[in-house]
């Protein structure tokens, strides 16, 4: 008897508590910047594609839902010829982002990806690539790496001396 009354009283008190139900979709929930949602490919500060097609995201992926093929432009800059994520398999674990050495692949605070057709959950590079650097504004892998690409010669990367003149090595 006492317990039933206490329960009624508790229910009554709840009428005066703050409401937790969010009126989604009219009202959008707060998602932290590091929230692991829809995956994107970002660009470096110069506007070039950040992805260098190193295959590390693909190999880190526990459900093997990333497939890509590397290619190079005429200057030696490597990029993915195609980049495909099968979101019908993706578990949004974020391992791909963790594995990415160039900050190219990032998970975003967006979960609104529902589809009626499963096939539509297969995203190609044009669906993934955004125009900005995403969460990591300053970084440009090519300024750190030692390979030569268009606009950056040998010895022009960070912490590099000018290329050795081989004539100085001759006796």
């Amino acid at each position: 008897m006492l317990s039933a009354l206490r329960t009624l009283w508790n229910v009554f008190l709840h009428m005066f508590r703050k409401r937790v139900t969010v009126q989604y979709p009219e009202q959008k929930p707060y998602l932290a910047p590091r929230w692991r949602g829809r995956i994107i490919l970002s660009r470096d500060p110069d506007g070039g594609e950040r992805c260098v097609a190193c295959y590390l995201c693909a190999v880190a992926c526990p459900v093997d839902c990333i497939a890509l093929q590397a290619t190079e432009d005429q200057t030696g800059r490597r990029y993915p010829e195609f980049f495909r994520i099968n979101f019908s398999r993706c578990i949004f674990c974020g391992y791909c982002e963790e594995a990415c050495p160039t900050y190219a692949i990032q998970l975003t605070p967006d979960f609104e990806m529902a589809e009626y057709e499963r096939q539509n959950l297969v995203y190609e590079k044009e669906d993934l690539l955004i125009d900005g650097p995403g969460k990591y504004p300053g970084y440009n892998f090519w300024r750190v790496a030692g390979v030569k690409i268009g606009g950056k010669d040998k010895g022009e990367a960070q912490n590099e001396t000018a290329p050795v003149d081989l004539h100085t090595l001759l006796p």
Partner: protein
Amino acid sequence: MSTVYIENRPHQMNEKQNLLEGCLSAGMNLPYFCWHPALGSVGACRQCAVKQFKDESDTHGRIVMACMTPAANGTRISIDDPEAVEFRRAVVEGLMLNHPHDCPVCDEGGECHLQDMTVMTGHAYRRATFEKRTFRNQYLGPFVNHEMNRCIQCYRCVRFYREYAGGGDLNAFSLRDIVYFGRERDGVLESEFAGNLVEVCPTGVFTDATHKRHYTRKWDLQFGPSVCIHCGLGCNTSVAERYGTVRRIVNRYHRAINGYFLCDRGRYGYEFVNSSQRIRQPRLRGRLVPAEAALGYLRLLAGGSVMGIGSPRASLESNFALRKLVGPEHFYAGIPSSEASVLALMLKILRTSTARTPTLHEIEEADALFILGEDVSNTAPRMALSARQSTRQQPMQGLERLHIPLWLDHPVREAVQNARGPLFVATPFATRLDGIATRAIRGAPDDLARLGFAVAHAINGSAPSEGVVDGTAEIAEALQRAHRPVVISGASLRNAALVQAAANIARARPGAALALIAPECNSLGLALLDAAPLEGALATHAETLIILENDLYRRAPEEVADKFLSRFHHIVVLDSLENATTRHAELLLPAATFAEGDGTFVSSEGRAQRALQAFVPPEAIAESWRWLGEWKSLDEAVAALAADIPALAAITSASPPASFREAGQKIPREPARYSGRTAKLAQISVHEPKPPDDPDTPLAFSMEGSPNQPPPAVTPFFWSPGWNSYQAINKFQEEIAGPLRGGDSGVRLFEPAARGNGYFPGAPRRFEPKPNEWLIVPIHHIFGSEELSRHAPGVAELAPQPYVALNPRDAEAFGAEVFCLGQRVRVRLAPEAPSGVVGVPADIPPFLGFDLPMRAEIRRAE
């Protein structure tokens, strides 16, 4: 064997090896860079440091380099000693000072020895903040890519390239801590073994330039254990596939054959598989038809009067399937009688000779070589690398007295200096082995055969000979004095007398081994099927002609082939690439290449080996034996073949049957970390297809299966935890540089006969130059002379332009260009060439289909 204590635990080691080899053989992980099992120890990188103790009571110990310390009995060492661990970590940190931040865009990444060793030593964070030195790269040709920033100065590349492979154009340019490995200036690397730099280099300085164009990480490749089809030696390769195209070829270690190295034709010829010339669907009178319709039509035609032409580049099963379909009496070998007769002779010698057919490993260990009439560097390139090693054998024989172990590379080279063991090269034109030959002898093929006969006679008086030939005594003496002499000859000059002469020498000198080089990957297998040569086919007639993987326009002159093909109502052609013959096909069937099909090939050594497919092509491509035969699986085809042809009965044991299971499971073709399974075909359908079944082999098209080491014949790739690079091979060998666990794969069909036959009588007559009638001799080229590899862009780039090689005195009568065999070509001077002999590039357009050597006229081009 000796007992070595590692962390106070006894291990059995080979006392002829060093501690590093012993530790690796014992399954320990010990990092190293400059040591290579084929190149020996130089102790340069200081990476394999271990602590050695005097005895049980010694607790101090001292740091030694494992690669420079013999695995002597009673040695006590510690790998895990904190001081040794710290030493190795410090060494790797030093090596990494200038290493660029390249791994994500480096082709070596994921199979990099430097990555593996850095992880093994525990060096994870860069403390150095100062600047890195940089270099400019060089263009090194279509096969090898250069990225010099990544170098850690282990010197393996120049040690392999200069000391092992005999190349001259790659060198180290150094000053203080600045060391540059490259050429004097940009240019194609001259050595035909340059591709091995890709595997020899522990990091990404030298990488596969063909792979770079369709780059895939090692963990994403699906591998197939294969056998190289670009010459007759049967080197073992791993074929790697991704997204339905072949991405690269890597060496598959076979102790007795290729060891650690391949030639560039074998490594880079694969690109023909991806060629736009590939036949991918059956075609009936030019229109695409479904496979069932094509098969129905083939059966219909086969019911009538039918004749078949086999091929030395098709597998035993495919040739046998055709032979069975058309009947043995209507089956022809598809090679001209000039070649077929030499092959039949070689087969007879293999069956009856008392001399052993050496493996390439045995040629490496020979201490005297006589190469008779074969330009080995071009007809069987990997054998030339073995021949090069053999010249070190005789000078190294005295080293035991000096107490220098053979693995101690620099002292061995100091002791040997420039001394070379006997190597005699007798060929019509200059070869790349001439530089290390004791003597290079030039002559017309018949004169070389006379030399061979004379040498046999000089060794044993009962051998026949006619007259004295210059150089005889020297060669005979060298062969007699040697402990393990080898005579090498072959079919490339299509001269039976040369092969007979070589056989006579091997008979005259008991204990000599005899290596006979067959021109194509299955020439010997085809000879074992005992078919009549092409001329037999030209003389007979049938309603339907079935041509198996053979371009008749390479076997017979154009007008002969045209006339022959025009006589048939129906022509069925099975082939993988479009060629002149496929244009005449009424029914064209897409044949699988080595990458997509299974088949058995018999190498020059007489070893039957099975090449197993790497992937299932999306189109209707199938093995020729599947098109022609009624068998459901490879095992059925092999069993039928073995039952029908007793000489080939042993091939059933060339590799384990499809029912073989390792720990109850199939053997995975894909590495455990294969990626993209649920995405690679998602653009077609999001519903993943089941991986294809493989009814033919114990391998699976999957990453799932037994993690155990499979038998060598069906090992698709080498990987071991912590060893992602090719150096993982250490974990698959019985001992370092020994056979793979499970023994040498393949089955040798011929062993030396107990009694042997007699001498071949009668040397040919002396070659007499005749005015206006020249002996036209084929000159083989590693790049270009082989039919399929020519379709690889890199090989095509390095193939020579047509030319005519002439002695300068003979060339005086002509201008810069001549008409030869109906073609206008430029003259190339060959200073050492015999008079009256003209060389033309073998099987390079337009010199196709001529029955060389032949006598013909050449005219001055106005």
